[in-house]
């Protein structure tokens, strides 16, 4: 029989597939959207593709945390064990619904409410995960393996990068709306270019953190 830990590893890896692997399509398409030689109609089509594919990383990133905690429990390195594991799953479930709500109701008052709750969840998680990781390095608890604590810290960093992407990209939507309404002007093209170009560093840092996390999970070094 297959042991549950192997199944969770598989789920963990598949989530990385839909996160990191799907991200290259999002990234590459975003570079096509800012090219003035493509017509607004063409760019609108690319934007639709991008919006759709971007759904995969959004969902995968939220599900990563409870699955990671299942694995940490399997290693005996996490305080969340037995019935306590319901907690991260419940949080992830609610967070997922709120995040999907924010994406599908974008621009409406309820969508904005969802987006601000989503932002708060992320801020709280960044704080909690950072404290938990540092406490684990310093005092051996809550996580008893340092490599797992380091993955927790890197996950907090990934969430920071995600917020960096969100804030850098905030000006893109209005500029894209202007492109659709008024056609291409040098000002609009510049306004489209700036967020895509400055979001790059956040995306690259996020990817770097994810691949390092993958290596940590495989090597499981004694840190």
């Amino acid at each position, binding site marked *: 029989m297959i042991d549950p830990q192997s199944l969770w590893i598989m789920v963990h890896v598949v989530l990385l*597939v839909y996160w990191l692997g799907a991200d*290259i399509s999002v990234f*590459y398409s975003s570079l096509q959207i800012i090219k003035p030689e493509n017509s607004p109609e063409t760019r609108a*089509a690319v934007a*639709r593709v991008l919006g759709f594919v971007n759904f995969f990383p959004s969902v995968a990133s939220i599900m990563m945390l409870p699955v990671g905690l299942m694995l940490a429990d399997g290693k005996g390195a996490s305080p969340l064990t037995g019935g306590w594991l319901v907690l991260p799953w419940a949080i992830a479930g609610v967070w997922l619904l709120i995040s999907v709500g924010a994406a599908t109701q974008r621009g409406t008052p309820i969508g904005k409410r969802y987006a601000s709750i989503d932002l708060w969840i992320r801020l709280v998680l960044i704080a909690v995960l950072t404290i938990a990781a540092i406490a684990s390095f310093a005092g051996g608890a809550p996580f008893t393996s340092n490599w797992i604590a380091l993955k927790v810290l890197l996950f907090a960093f990934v969430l920071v990068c995600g917020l960096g992407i969100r804030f850098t990209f905030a000006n893109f939507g209005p500029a894209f709306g202007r492109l659709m309404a008024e056609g291409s002007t040098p000002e609009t093209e510049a306004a489209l270019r700036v967020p895509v170009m400055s979001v790059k560093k956040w995306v690259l840092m996020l990817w770097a953190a994810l691949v390092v996390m993958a290596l940590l999970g*495989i090597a499981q070094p004694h840190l």
Partner: protein
Amino acid sequence: MELEFWQSVIVWLHLLLFVYWLGGDIGVFYTSYFRNNPKYDVPTRILLARITGDIDMAPKTTMVLMVPTGFTVAAIHGYLTISSTWLIAFWIFGAVWLALVWWLHLEKSPEKKAPWAKFDLRLRWALMITFTVLAISSFTTGEPINVNFVALKLLIFAATIGCGIGIRVSIKPYVAAFAEIKAEGSTPEREARLNAAAKRSRNFVKGIWVLVALAAFIGTWKPGF
């Protein structure tokens, strides 16, 4: 077993290849629906075709590199009887084949490409047959692979190469129909041919997804049978 750090790095590369193979395919797959939709104008569809073609280099690259990383991971775990000379040969082969795959993507002249595309296709046939033979030999004699789950992974890999060949063959009417749409515009007949070919090749794409995910699952599970 406890892995040395460099061995972990090879396993990590093998995992990242899986990530970019299956993950890159999502973008290709969904973009292709937009590309095949007559609702969009021809320049849009040409750009979407370019985007799918470029993103498709992720799965194409990873598949090639699966050969050297896969054999090396098997050797690291002692599942495969192989000399280091052979392993180095696999890495050189992977590098050369990868160079060919990228050259076929970047080169614009169809005349220059044609003989090498044919060679690439024959190479895939040869690899599919070789890997199938190696897998069956491993099942029956324990050579060169001494555990069945790894031999099964090799057989599955051979099947993904088969699906890749299936895509290349079934996509031919698509390429012709898309070229006509590009040159002379969309007609219902051309769209029908385009979408019929796309539908056939999607079955092979889905086949690859199932097989690649299955191979990953078996690699994680390591069943003894």
